[in-house]
């Protein structure tokens, strides 16, 4: 079901994702971590492509990289001061957390390899999904779609409200 080419791509993407993930998790510099997030997103977007979710991959790139990453970097710089070079991102309680995470990954591994997943008999044909998604969003998924818009509107207004006043305060002080 997967071609060797895809296997190779999977390996490469996995390398990127793990490296980026480790950088996020362990790096002492916040800017490195923030940039590493980029790598992780790209890697996951690659997985999406491999899994035939082309539209999701695109959205992942657009939303995350175009939106969230920039937001992060802004925030990093705003909260730390642009001239501040020591953007430390230190960790606490690593000794307690490491075993926790190791146990977690072991458990998840056991789960993944022992569970009888719901697997279709035939492999999925990889085809563009954009049209189908657009269709579904306006029929079956109309309600979530509309609700999401309310949510985003509220988020927008709320975020602006918080940030706007924050700026004001800064001006005063």
């Amino acid at each position, binding site marked *: 079901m997967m071609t060797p080419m895809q296997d190779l791509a999977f390996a490469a993407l996995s390398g990127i994702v793990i490296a980026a993930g480790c950088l996020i998790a362990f790096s002492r510099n916040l800017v490195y971590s923030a940039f590493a997030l980029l790598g992780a997103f790209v890697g996951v977007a690659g997985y999406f492509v491999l899994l035939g979710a082309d539209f999701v991959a695109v959205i992942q790139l657009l939303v995350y990289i175009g939106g969230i990453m920039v937001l992060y970097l802004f925030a990093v710089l705003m909260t730390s001061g642009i001239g501040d070079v020591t953007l430390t991102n230190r960790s606490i309680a690593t000794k307690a957390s490491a075993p*926790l995470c190791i146990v977690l990954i072991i*458990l998840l591994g056991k789960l993944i390899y022992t569970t009888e997943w719901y697997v279709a008999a035939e492999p999925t044909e990889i085809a563009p999904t954009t049209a189908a998604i657009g269709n579904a969003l306006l029929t079956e998924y109309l309600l979530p779609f509309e609700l999401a818009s309310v949510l985003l509107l509220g988020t927008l207004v709320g975020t602006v409200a918080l940030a706007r006043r924050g700026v004001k305060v800064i001006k005063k002080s």
Partner: protein
Amino acid sequence: MHFFLENIWVIPLAPLIGFLINGLGCFLRLPYVKSRKFVHFVACTAIFVAFVFAVGVFFDLLGMDPAHRSFTKTLYPWISIGSLEANVAFLADPLSAVMMLIITGVGFLIHVYSIGYMHEDPGFARFFTYLNLFCFAMLLLVMGDNIFMLFIGWEGVGLCSYLLIGFWYEHKPNAVAGMKAFIVNRIGDFAFLIGLFLLFWFLYQQGHPTVAFSGIQENVHLLEGAKVGGISLLALVGILLFIGATGKSAQIPLYVWLPDAMAGPTPVSALIHAATMVTAGIYMIGRLNFVYSLAPEALVVVATVGALTALFAATIGFAQNDIKKVLAYSTVSQLGYMFLGMGTGAYTAGIFHLMTHAFFKACLFLGSGSVILGMHHEQDMRRMGGLKKYMPVTYMTFLLATIAIAGIFPFAGFFSKDEILWKTFESGGHQYWYYVLWGMGVLGAMGTAFYMFRAVAMTFFGKLGERAHEIAPNEVEEDEHGPHQHEHHTPHESPKSMTFALVVLAILSVVGGLVGIPYALGHFFHIPNFFEEWLAPVFAGAHGEGHGAHHDVPVIEYMLMVFSVAIALATSALAVYIYTKRKDLPARFVTRFPRLHRLVHEKYYVDEIYQVLVVNNLLRINQLLALFDQKVVDGFVNFAGTVVRFSSKVAGFTDNRWVDGFVNLVGNSISFAGASLRKAQTGLVQNYLYIAVAGVIALMIWRLL
């Protein structure tokens, strides 16, 4: 129609009314109680009315067929629950008639006597109130037709005794003595109740649950052979009831309250602690003779305790200097004789001695009261002496009563005491143990004669105050009013109201015994034993009453009579001799045997032993329990908390959260748990999430296990 029998309720009611009139008057401070005349008029009238009715009852009974001289007057049902039926009912039979006569008669005399004795006391009205109440309770005791009625009276007289002993309550020892009397009596009551319950439920088992005397008499034979844990039921019941009697009637081991009870005013000592209340135990055994007759083991116990007490108390009497104490121990001793009599099955003799004792002991006490009053509240015989000339009437009556108590023919004491000793001796024929008891009785009789005449000698003979030097300076002088500053006054004779009573009682002490002349003497003159015949229906069937023996008087009975009179005379004479002529002898005796004297003088340290063994331990247990209650029971739940608190201190977690009011039941442990959990709330969201994830993982692992 028997007017007096039908209206027998008047007898207890009259003193009750007297009590109410004076009592309410005192309590509400009504004007009439300010008049002493009114008060004593009410009180004396009340008891006199009762006396008149008691006499009426006596004659009503006399007019009845001797075999059926029993009359029950039921007023109303008192407690009737389940199988328990106790009525408020009065029983008039020869026994209760005798008791009623003694109580009302002697009681009346003592009332009259008290008019003079208490004349100057601020608590005059209160005193008569209590006295009436006492008569009421005592009458209930002897008139009740069931054990519960008896028990009301039993406890009621205890209450009055408590109140009267502590009459001058401002002086602490008096109050303590009252308390002691009540509590020691309660120990007896404890056994009494258990005995009562046993009797009741075993009768219930036989289908005849009853507390009425007549009912018990009818059915008690059903219990013959019943056993409780290997012991004969009836013996057990008898012994338990007898323990009750040892409390009330001051026998070993519960006699200790009686000497202390002398703290009460002297008329009280005469009425309650000599003539009436203390004889309740004897009355009870007499009343339940049908039970005891079926329980020979119990009778042996009664007799033994009686004889022991008679002897034991008599010895203590040797070394007492307080005139009332001497009489008190004498009372204990005489009560012992009565029990000895009851214990040999000679119920009539016991009751007979009860009656004569009431006469002469009341007389003695009243005489001592007269002396005390004459000596201006002095009770120590060593300060007395030669009172013969100051107080002739008192002297004469006291002397007559002393002769009576010593058992010298033909005074009252002779007949009754000799009857008891003879019956005891006679019982020795069946059981050799009774010979021993008889021996003790005789010894006790000797002792009685000795210390009584010692008292007479010390008080009335010789010169006033000739022994005052014997009083050690450190001896605390106390009388019934408390610590006493000795002042010298000339002794004087008492007022008429007092001497009247003395004279009447003295006469009774002399002639009172004639109603019960034993067959052995009486048959020479064809004088029947009135007393025995009178009581015969009550004690019919009691095995000790040897009616059949009347026609065959053993020679030994005469020998014993002579013997006892002889030794009584001898010891009396000896006592008089020693304490008038050889005044140095007692002192030499003391120096010769200091320990023995001390032992006897301190009443064999029984009080102290009780104090150490019982009271102190009890108090210690109480303290421990109270501590237990505070620390252990209450702290049980706190216990975990305490442990935790300790460990938390180790952990350096000792802020005042602990002190902040969490000393509660669930308290410490919960608040510690809360505080620990609270510490988990670090304020770091990472930790929060850590705990969340850890929780999920823990549950996963739980699931996998």
